[in-house]
């Protein structure tokens, strides 16, 4: 597996982690009502969206490079 393929896998796993973390933070907010925790959760969901956009850009940008 090349660095390019491993990076895509890494982005996918990171996205899953961030989505899970976001869900955990929202759940914590619903139980304890800490607004900062909700902010972290929402920020995490935004980061997931950024990672997915980046992953798509990365695939497109580096499609011409060999070493897959």
């Amino acid at each position, binding site marked *: 597996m090349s*660095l390019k393929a491993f*990076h895509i896998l*890494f982005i996918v*796993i990171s996205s899953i*982690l961030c989505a899970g973390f976001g869900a*955990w933070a929202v759940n914590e907010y619903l139980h304890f009502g800490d607004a900062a925790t909700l902010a972290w959760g929402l920020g995490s969901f935004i980061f997931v969206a950024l990672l997915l956009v980046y992953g798509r850009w990365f695939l497109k940008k580096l499609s011409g490079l060999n*070493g897959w």
Partner: protein
Amino acid sequence: MSTAVLPYTVEPHPITRLYSGKLGIWLFLASEVMLFGALFSSYVLLRVGAPVAGPAAWPAHAETGLSWKIGGFNTLVLIISSVTMVMAWAALKTHNIGRAKAYLATTVFLALVFIVVKLTLEYIPKIQAGHTPSHNNFFALYFTLTGLHALHIIGGIIVITYFIGPGSALWKTDPEYFTNRVECTGLYWHFVDLVWIFLFPVLYLT
């Protein structure tokens, strides 16, 4: 006297279809999976086997004093460092050594941020509070897992710094070989970051 030349440093081996460095780094990473896998297994077994109550009980999350905000920040730092690492390799693929060095330097900077945060906001306050590895099983595993991970980060910093400095001389004589070396370093770096992706929820959120 004949000069020995390493085979398949650039072109792939006809059987493995990998150049030697990539085969080597994947074998090394396979051994790393076993090392961290054994430690993760220890964590699961000790946690599941801990008594429900009493002095040997597994500590509640609040008792550990671990801040998920600090852990989350460090997770963000490592994810971004993987992006800069792969961008350094991509810059080399497009023959832009200056940009590659800038990305490598950014990766080193982010790795240093991770280590400094870990030391100053986690390790030192924990040790000062008496939460040393001998305190209980949780802290024994916490320091073993995160300490081993931090050692890997420091190892990565040394290797990447070498490629920014003296190691980059190879670029002038054999740019493809140098690019392959950076790719192998990138594979290692991604693995180390991936370990943290698993460590963070296990230690900070549960």
